[in-house]
């Protein structure tokens, strides 16, 4: 099939741009480890309260200014409530759901992941700036969805 010369140029620029985009996000993901949250761990969604580490939701210090934050989400709340973290802390967030699908978003950061029952999701974030961060559920989970939130207080070191 014949393509007009200008159409060839146009498609070449277009496809070239797309290839460039894919290369950039591909390198960032596969070479630099910036994968979107894709945890493969599963659990029985009806036994969250007795499954480690979700039997003890909360913040655990695991290294030098490094923490593990275990969160259980259920309609319409996150456990634990009101978390305090020192500035500059590297936090490994681990989350699951006791009922329906929720979303976990920390406003003003790139922390954003789906929380599906039966699955664990996780990602790591370093809190560089002190302040009050809002954690919200960003997936519809029922009539109280808009109330489902908690806070992280990042304190000055």
């Amino acid at each position, binding site marked *: *099939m*014949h393509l*007009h010369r*200008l*159409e060839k140029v*146009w*498609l070449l620029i*277009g496809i070239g741009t*797309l290839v460039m*985009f*894919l290369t950039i*996000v591909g390198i*960032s*993901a*596969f070479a630099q480890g910036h*994968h*979107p*949250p*894709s*945890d*493969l*761990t*599963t*659990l*029985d*969604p*009806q036994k969250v309260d007795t499954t480690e580490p979700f039997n003890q939701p909360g913040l655990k210090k695991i290294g030098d200014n490094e923490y593990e934050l275990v969160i259980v989400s259920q*309609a*319409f709340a996150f456990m634990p409530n009101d978390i305090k973290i020192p500035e500059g802390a590297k936090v490994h967030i681990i989350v699951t759901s006791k*009922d*329906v*699908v929720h*979303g976990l*978003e920390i*406003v*003003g950061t*790139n922390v*954003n*992941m*789906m929380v*599906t*029952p*039966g*699955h*664990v*999701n996780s990602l790591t974030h370093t809190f560089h700036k002190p302040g*009050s961060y*809002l954690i*919200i*559920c*960003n*997936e*519809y989970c*029922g*009539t*109280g*969805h*808009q*109330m489902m*939130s908690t806070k992280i207080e990042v304190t000055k070191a």
Partner: protein
Amino acid sequence: MKNTALHPNDGKLALAHIAVGYIALFLGAIAGLLQAFVRSGTLELPAGIGYYQLLTAHGVLLALVFTTFFIIGFLYASMSRTTGDLTPFAKKSAWIGFWLMTIGTAITTVMILLNKATVLYTFYAPLKASPWFYIGLTLVVVGSWVSGAGMFSQYAVWKKKNEGKPSPLLSFMAVATMILWIIATLGVAVTVLFQFIPWSFGLVDKINVLLSRTLFWYFGHPLVYFWLLPAYMCWYVIIPKIIGGKIFSDSLARLAFVLFVLFSIPVGFHHQILESGITPFWKFLQIVLTFMVIVPSLMTAFALFATFEISGREKGASGLFGWVKKLPWTDVRFFAPFMGMLVFIPGGAGGIINASNQMNQVVHNTLWVTGHFHLTVATTVALTFFGISYWLVPHLTGRTLTPRLNKLGIIQTVFWCIGMFLMSGAMHTVGLFGAPRRTAYTTYGDHPQALEWMSYQTIMAVGGAILFVAILMILYIVINLAVAAPKGTEEFPVGEVHEDAEKTPLLLENWKIWIGLSVVLIVIAYTVPVIDIIENAPSSPGFKFW
């Protein structure tokens, strides 16, 4: 091709579909208006109506019902126009399809109004609605399949009578759109029939949530191309005739549609980028395929502007952009779809951002996404469907588009664009700040981050109010064109191919090859992860949190 009216029976069929579509548009728009006011904090819903109940109605009535009915009506009209009167089999299929879809829509809508299905139009498990909600949706899908069968048979009959000739472009595109739709809806049919219905009736206790989400999004992304392709039909074939030009290339137009059939389906994971249980490799593979589906849209953009420029120059335009002045800006049949095309530029760019793997993390489930599809489906597609209605409805009812209604249509288009600029612009911006989509009014206990969003949510309501006025205008115009405009003959514009264009290779019409390739791509993109999900993803009991 002569400009004669469609056979009255075919006209009635198309008109019935369009009428149900517009009724759904009206009801869905009322829900949308109320939502915008609730979200801005200026309205509390009376009589126990829930925000999420309205949101479910808005999504189902607009994204599923308005679009599907209008599209099937338009496709049948196009087939009757270009392949001749519908055969008895096609007509029968179309009417059976119409009634199945209408009954399904009625059942689903009643369930939503009774507050038995406040699960939003994506009905994510394990939120469990009344089984009748799912049954209603099944009837809509099955009805559309029966309609599709009618179109395929009409096309086959034409092919048999005209061996060795390429089919009329408009009919080829209608068939491609229905092929895409049927392959896509298989996913949602499997999850609804084998997972949701037995589970909601209590025959099984649990549902594999990740599998249901994966099957939904196998359908959910090609769904948006099912909306878009009929708009492309108008842009490729109808618009050239309206502006007094010719179709740039018949074969490239067909190639674009074939590429959509191939690449719009194996891409559903880009809606599940932030989800557990799917490995980064499979997500990325489908993201690469997602980017492939941008190519036919680039081809479309080129072809359209080539048509505009060539026709402008043939009318004596000079200079680099002189042809712009030769376009019929005061003809709403051109103006409304053209504004839709323009909006597709930011709409498409936003889509590329959404699908860009880890970039999705910035915008996923924020109002940015709502802003995005209010540009693509609710402006590009909607304005093009309005643009089609301005001539199709009077063509079917034996009336004419008067200068007054034409002018009102131009004003309607301007109102739509202003309203959407405000609403979608505010949604995009506040979404980048993190405001979540699908969420009722809340300040999260007056948290300072959430309070920053409030003024944007007010702008959204202002935009929504302007859009509702525009909805009333389009309904006034369409009703007028259907029952009150002066009698006469309104043209069903069908463009002809430019004489410089190449002959169409018949390979493009070899559906066995294209459907085969499409299946191969789907198998590559989905087999391994789906087996993995079936083996490993846990099942969950149902919940009713409304």
